[in-house]
């Protein structure tokens, strides 16, 4: 019989070794698949893991790629810890970008120094509002937040599509579905490292993302609100006994995750695009769900998990470009990586026992 029993003690040592083992196994299985498909396994693995990290500016770009994932996943950690299943971060990213874009494009006469804070605020409100719809429906009518938040993603995607093709389109865009470019003050600047200058696409949004994750870690581990979130997620009855309000917790975590997702959308547009376009998020809201779980719902882990997922994305791009590897093969490899990491984590927390009932009863003959 095969059974998985929870480990009583999860040692730090094993926790650190597990992801290394998982990645080694990914390398072995990946190499085998590449070889079967006729690619040079070593060259392919080089493209996946080494090439995206071979120069400092590429490392910086890795952080840029991870930035929206880290911001969004940090918010999602609060939701999932509270057992609130916000699956619609993708839509909240879009609505954040739209609201910030509205400020950047259509609010005249704001002093430059106030423009960016106003955009951030607008992005938070936009994402929050979008997340509050499933929140209020759940608190009032006990609807399923998974379905509502997921469906609202498509509403948001169609809404921005309509905006940039219709009312918000730049008349001088030659028919392309694009808004006007943002003013300089509405753009997020590259980080100017002393003595080095700018490094790849590295922008201040990345710094903000790292700070956000640290703040979230503090809130989660040291404040009463973080305690409330964990209690309501682990044991809602104990939470009610303790005096926490379930509906308020639900609304609270949805606000946080919506605001984070909205800011991620705003950062993406202001740092990388400079204008609104039909697609502002390339599945970041969904990938962030994986990041949050890969991080074991720990805001510090979100940084590492965001970087790992970003590496897999960039490595996939690099393998496609350098080796002409089809997108589906890079997708399979990313899937193997995720599988190995999650399986490793599972074995870290549970012990696999395989027992053979027929053999373990060997003394059966003794009595007869």
């Amino acid at each position: 019989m095969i059974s998985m029993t929870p480990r009583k003690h999860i040692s730090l040592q094993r926790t650190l070794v597990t992801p290394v083992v998982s990645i080694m196994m990914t390398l072995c299985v990946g190499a085998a698949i590449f070889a079967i498909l006729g690619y040079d396994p070593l060259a392919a693995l080089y493209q996946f893991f080494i090439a995206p990290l071979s120069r400092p500016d590429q490392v910086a770009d890795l952080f840029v790629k991870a930035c929206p994932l880290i911001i969004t996943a940090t918010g999602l950690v609060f939701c999932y810890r509270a057992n609130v299943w916000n699956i619609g971060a993708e839509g909240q990213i879009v609505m954040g970008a739209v609201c910030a874009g509205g400020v950047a494009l259509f609010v005249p006469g704001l002093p430059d120094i106030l423009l960016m804070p106003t955009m951030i605020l607008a992005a938070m409100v936009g994402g929050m509002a979008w997340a509050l719809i499933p929140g209020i429906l759940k608190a009032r009518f006990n609807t399923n937040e998974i379905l509502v938040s997921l469906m609202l993603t498509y509403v948001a995607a169609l809404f921005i599509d309509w905006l940039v093709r219709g009312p918000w389109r730049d008349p001088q865009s030659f028919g392309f579905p694009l808004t006007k470019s943002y003013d300089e003050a509405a753009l997020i600047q590259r980080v100017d490292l002393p003595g080095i200058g700018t490094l790849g696409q590295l922008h201040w949004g990345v710094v903000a993302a790292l700070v956000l994750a640290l703040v979230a870690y503090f809130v989660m581990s040291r404040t009463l609100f973080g305690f409330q979130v964990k209690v309501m997620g682990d044991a809602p009855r104990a939470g009610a006994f303790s005096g926490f309000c379930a509906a308020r917790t639900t609304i609270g975590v949805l606000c946080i995750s919506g605001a984070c997702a909205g800011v991620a959308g705003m950062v993406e547009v202001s740092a990388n695009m400079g204008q609104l376009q039909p697609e502002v998020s390339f599945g970041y809201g969904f990938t962030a769900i994986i990041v949050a779980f890969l991080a074991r719902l720990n805001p510090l882990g979100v940084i590492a998990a965001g970087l790992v997922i970003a590496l897999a994305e960039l490595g996939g791009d690099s393998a496609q470009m350098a080796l002409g590897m089809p997108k589906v093969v890079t997708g399979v490899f990313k899937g193997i990586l995720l599988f190995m990491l999650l399986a490793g984590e599972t074995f870290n927390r549970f012990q696999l026992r395989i027992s053979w009932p027929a053999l373990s009863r060997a003394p059966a003959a003794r009595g007869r």
Partner: protein
Amino acid sequence: MTRPHAATSLKTPPVLNAVGLTKSFGDFRANDAVSFSIQPGEIHALLGENGAGKSTFVKLVYGLLQPDEGQIFWQGQPVNISGPLQARQLGIGMVFQHFSLFESLSVAENIQLALPAGENLAALSDRIRDMSDRYGLAIDPDAYIHNLSVGQQQRVEVMRCLLQNPSLLIMDEPTSVLTLQETDQLFSVLRQFADSGMAVLFISHKLDEIRALTSRATVLRRGRNVGTVDTKKNNNRQLAELMVGRKIADVTRQSAPDQSKAVCVIKNLQRPKPTAFAVTLKDISFTANAGEILAIAGIAGNGQDEIMAALSGEWRPPSADIILLDGQDISHLGPAARRRVGLGVVPEERNGHAAIPSMSLSDNALLTSHSLGKAVQHGVIDGAATKAIAAEVIDKFDVRVPSDDPMAASLSGGNLQKFVVGREIIKSPRLLVVAQPTWGVDVGAAVSIRKSMLDLAARGSAVIMISQDLEEVFAIAHKIAVLHGGCLSDVMLASKVTAEQVGILMGGGADIEGASA
């Protein structure tokens, strides 16, 4: 009363003879060379604290676990019992503490499911009626389970075993869900079984019952058999001390104090049932006075959960002046605000309600102290303060912990209960509300929990104890009210009523005259 078969026990081989059974889980020896035998026609008790190894032993006998060492002899023959199916084929029947009946099926259909295929329902129903008549079980095979009381459901479980003609019937804490009267009925049925030659292994930690029903008891302590004793020649205290392995202090209530000062007043509390399976509270009024323990007795499911939620603030009445604490209306306050005005609450369910198993004891201490100022400053948790609270509870209430600030899940039930009770008492609440304070708790822990409640009352607080354990109610309560069907009886002086009278009220009988306090 003598049993014909017990008299011949020296000549007939024991039905079951277990020799040196050992079972380990990792480093933990749940059973350590336990030997045990039971004669045909004997009712034998298996006694022990929680975690003493009773369940492990029974699982070894019923084939749910395999011993690491030792041998089981069944009617003189060595056997290896590989599973419950083989156990049933040998003639071992077992009634578990938790029933496994399909509520939407009839009695006969439920029993048919447990029997080998092939018997048609009509024939089975006849057999059930026969058996029911023979033992006075009063089971209607056509009745649906959801219409039966808990006691009747248990008899269905017993019937299911009986139809397989067992030579040994194992009952795991069967009386924990029964009223006094139902317990008496069960005992008379079990005595009939014994008279017809069946052996009954009866697991319980209610000492009065064991002494009423059985003549011999085997006591387990920390996985070892510490002796088989004559239950008629030992009193409760001697049995308990054998279970615990040390002397037990006396816990008795003092006489009721002057009743002038009301701490908690409940006036016309009503609550429509929140779900289909809940109970409607009907116009409940009572007063808990300073210095006394008021017991609300009653079988579970008669409105205890609903009263508890109203007292703790998890549910709040829609109008004012329903619940008063020291004269202040607290009806509208939530649990955290009620704690600030001096309420302490211990819910019945330890895991997931009173405490969170996956969290540390200091986090569990924070659960009921975050509104009291010390542990949380400006929304930030003071980790040192919560650890200090937990350490103080652990120290003062003798909570045995495996490590420094462990997870609640790593404590035994009794120790966790000492922690959640101590967590409230340490705050010296004006009113302590406790539900089933010693439910599933070993004797040693139960004694210390009861003592700490009495101490709190002696310091001038009021204690409301919701309990279905009459032994406990009469041991420490000054006053008793009985909850049945969402209605509360008059409050009676404990010294003026008997357990039988309270038992009748718990079963829905009429009020007792002249006992009102």
